[in-house]
């Protein structure tokens, strides 16, 4: 393919305070590709993702979206190229579910534009995709944790950027919704050529729903490769510093802590 990759990280080094998250990280993500980021609590997965989203500066290195850096793009153009799912959602003020979803249209609207009927349609389609169609008039402050998480995903879909950066997309979700959300982004990658980078806690789901995995060891080391090479009992036992056993059933893999 001749087009520039959706995102490209060049010699990226990231740290939080004294803690080194990664050094000299290089990768590219093409349309349709899905990458999982795994690591222990506090390893810096979310920090790395927010750096990739342009919300935090790396120590060194550069990030290009479609060949252009965040500095050149500016926040609004960047918002048309990548969406970012936040890990925590706090609502200081009351607002309806539909209004919240419509905030995803912001980068598409001019300064004086109001959200049109077309924008509302896009938002309603997104709400339907996450199973919140009946709740558009509900106040966000009354939603359960799982419902609020699905609303955040609907807002992200409404933003309609070709690259999704997901920080724990499965947080607060029941098993059925976990699979539904993963299927949703798998479909977006397969059918629309979206790129997905997600922070996950369940290696078996990463194995099933991603092409590559990036393991963050928490001491500055990282490993990147296809899921079948990265997500083995040996690698994961070292990553989580707890012995794991791989179990294969019907061509799917699970990891059981010993």
């Amino acid at each position, binding site marked *: 393919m001749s087009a520039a990759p959706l995102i490209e990280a060049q010699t990226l080094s990231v740290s939080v305070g004294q803690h080194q998250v990664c050094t000299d990280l290089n990768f590219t993500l093409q349309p349709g590709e899905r990458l999982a980021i795994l690591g222990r609590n506090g390893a810096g997965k979310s920090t790395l993702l927010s750096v990739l989203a342009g919300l935090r500066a790396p120590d060194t290195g550069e990030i290009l979206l479609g060949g252009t850096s965040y500095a050149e793009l500016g926040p609004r153009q960047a918002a048309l190229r990548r969406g*970012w799912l936040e890990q925590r*959602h706090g609502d200081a003020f009351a607002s309806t579910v*539909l*209004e919240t979803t419509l*905030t*995803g249209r*912001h980068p598409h609207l001019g*300064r004086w534009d*109001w959200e049109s009927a077309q924008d509302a349609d896009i938002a309603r389609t997104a709400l339907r995709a996450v199973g919140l169609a009946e709740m558009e008039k509900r106040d966000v402050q009354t939603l359960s944790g799982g419902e609020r998480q699905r609303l955040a995903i609907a807002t992200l879909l409404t*933003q309609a950027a070709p690259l999704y950066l997901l920080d724990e997309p499965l947080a607060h979700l029941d098993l059925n919704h976990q699979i539904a959300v993963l299927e949703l982004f798998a479909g977006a990658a397969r059918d629309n050529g979206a790129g997905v980078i997600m922070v996950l806690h369940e290696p078996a789901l990463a194995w099933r729903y991603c092409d590559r995995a990036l393991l963050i060891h928490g001491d500055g080391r990282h490993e990147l490769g296809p899921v079948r090479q990265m997500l083995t009992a040996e690698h994961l036992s070292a990553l989580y510093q707890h012995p794991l056993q791989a179990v294969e059933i019907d061509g799917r893999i699970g990891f059981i802590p010993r």
Partner: protein
Amino acid sequence: MPSSRRALLILTSLSLLAGLSIGLALSVGSLRIPFPDVLAALAGREVQGIDVVLELRLPRALAGFACGGLLALAGALMQVLLRNPLADPYVLGISGGAGVGAMFAILLGLPVLGIDGLAFLGALSAMFIVFGLAHGDGSWTQTRLLLTGVIVAAGCGALVALMLAIAPEHKLRGMLFWLMGDLGQSGQWWPPLLALGVALLLAMPFARELNLLARGMMQAQALGVAVNRLRYAIYLLASLATAASVTTAGSIGFVGLVVPHLVRLATGNDQRLLLPASVLAGGSLLVLADTLARTLIAPQQLPVGVLTALIGVPVFLFLLSRHQR
């Protein structure tokens, strides 16, 4: 997102309320002037009491409207900036700084212009001190800003108390009235009104971005808002709006806190409607409160800040109890 028809309806009714409140302020007082005469006087025709209407009541009503509007606007902006529904225009110490300046001016025996000048200077100093301290490590999180503001306000409160303690008896009344908020001594009516117009004009283009900012800084940035620039601008705008109001009429309490909340009940939380609606409602409320303040126990005048607080406290407590779902 309110429909445009609903938005128009709300803004039209609030404009009517604003017109009515100003009409009432022109008509009511020790000299009662019937409504038709008020209109005739405004049209420039010679009627009885035209001097009272045009030279006493109109400037005071306009100044009151402007101050109420400025406070409500500043309150709505501060609540977004700090992402805290309990924030008000004074929470960051602006009125404290203005109070120190004004008390010092009264203590020195300066004329009205001097009091206004030092009050404005005090407000600006407080603004820069809070900003400088909160900015410290370059992050200026909401909590840090809020804490710094509260501490600076407390320091200003101590200075004001000190000056009250050493002030001679005959100056105390003037000082207390200033501190409680009083439109009786306001000088010119046009500077606050001009400030109100400019502030609203500057805020409106950013109203949708403010909607996003209210949902979180990182989230707003991810959706394409230049968050840091916007927060500087909002901080400056809200502070200057507060300073303009405090300079004109002293620290009138509760308008900036209660009005945005009352308006939110009717309009929802879309800043594109909330900001202009708050301006109209805040202006009307202060004009009505001031009319009450000068008629309730006439010829004695009450400081309007006392009345807004007396109205504001029960309303706010009601809202607060409603908030705990």
